């Protein structure tokens, strides 16, 4: 329970840090640059980077597992743990993707109306700028 609380407080500190940095960015002329969508996209990037690092670590451990003279049991345990972390990271990444989609969806508005509008635009005849020979 104590561990969970400390993690929560750590996340709180990080959030405070981010909000302070955003204020600093505004002071340096980047007002309205870090929108919630932008931050979500940045977090998605961070999540993808994390997954990449975890997978790279997993590849190293698998190499270690097949190498001669290494502790196979330890390597196997570490791989199992890593698999869990990878799953969590993937779940988190999916959450960010869903959030971004929801944010974009709000901007787009009614999807059915949008589909009709897109189909309508698609039917417009193409105007050629080419001049044919006389």
């Amino acid at each position, binding site marked *: 329970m104590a561990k969970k609380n400390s993690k929560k407080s*750590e996340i709180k500190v990080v959030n405070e840090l981010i909000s302070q940095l955003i204020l600093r960015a*505004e002071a*340096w002329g*980047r007002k309205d640059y870090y929108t919630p969508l932008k931050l979500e996209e940045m977090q998605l990037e961070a999540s993808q980077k994390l997954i990449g690092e975890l997978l790279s670590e997993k590849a190293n451990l698998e190499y270690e597992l097949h190498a001669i003279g290494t502790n196979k049991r330890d390597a196997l345990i570490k791989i199992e743990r890593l698999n869990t972390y990878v799953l*969590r990271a993937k779940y988190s990444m999916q959450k960010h993707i869903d959030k971004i989609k929801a944010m974009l969806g709000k901007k787009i508005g009614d999807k059915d109306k949008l589909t009709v509008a897109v189909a309508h635009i698609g039917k417009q005849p193409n105007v050629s700028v*080419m001049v044919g020979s006389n």
Partner: protein
Amino acid sequence: MASNYAVSANQTGTSGKPQVGGNKFKPLVAEKENIPLTSPNEKALQPTQMRATSASAWVRETDSVKLSDSDKKDQAPELQFETALDKGIHAVGSAVGAVLTGAAIIWTGETPQGRAASQYSDQALPSLTTEQEEIANAHTAAYAAVKNAGHNEGTKGVFSRAYEAVKNRVDAAFTREHALGSGVSHAHLTQKIKERTFKEQQAIDDGILAALETKEQLETGLA
């Protein structure tokens, strides 16, 4: 009749060197044989007729291909065509150049914003003396200190006092007037402040990214 005008790549001109293409040779052939440049049955090729291909059609539409009236009066039909062709080639060359530049931007990932940022450091300005450089740097540092403390502006207590302290220091020693009075040009100050602004923005961007990575690790249970 048309075959009289045709000059192959192997034929030689007056200099004895092989000449490629018929247009350059035409006046010579015409002079020797007293043949009119345009036969009665053949119409001279006018710039308006450059629409056989899509490229020439596009070129014809551009301003660079249009001949002025004086050009048209002074030039023989063949020369009119050559001038139009030259201008057309130039226009196509420019268009291709623009496309290639666009492709290069995509290839290198260099955006106009990125280029604008790099321009700050590339801008050629007369060099400053050591003393002027120090004053300019001090001014930039003071400017940065005010900007960084600026987010606490309006708050009470310690932060407010810290901001006031920085501001007073700046007012006392490193004002813009002080820097300009010592012979540092306005362009120098602007360039230095732009450079500093860009660096600060980059640092903030990196900081936010690092914080988000930490947050992600905490949420995943890694940290």
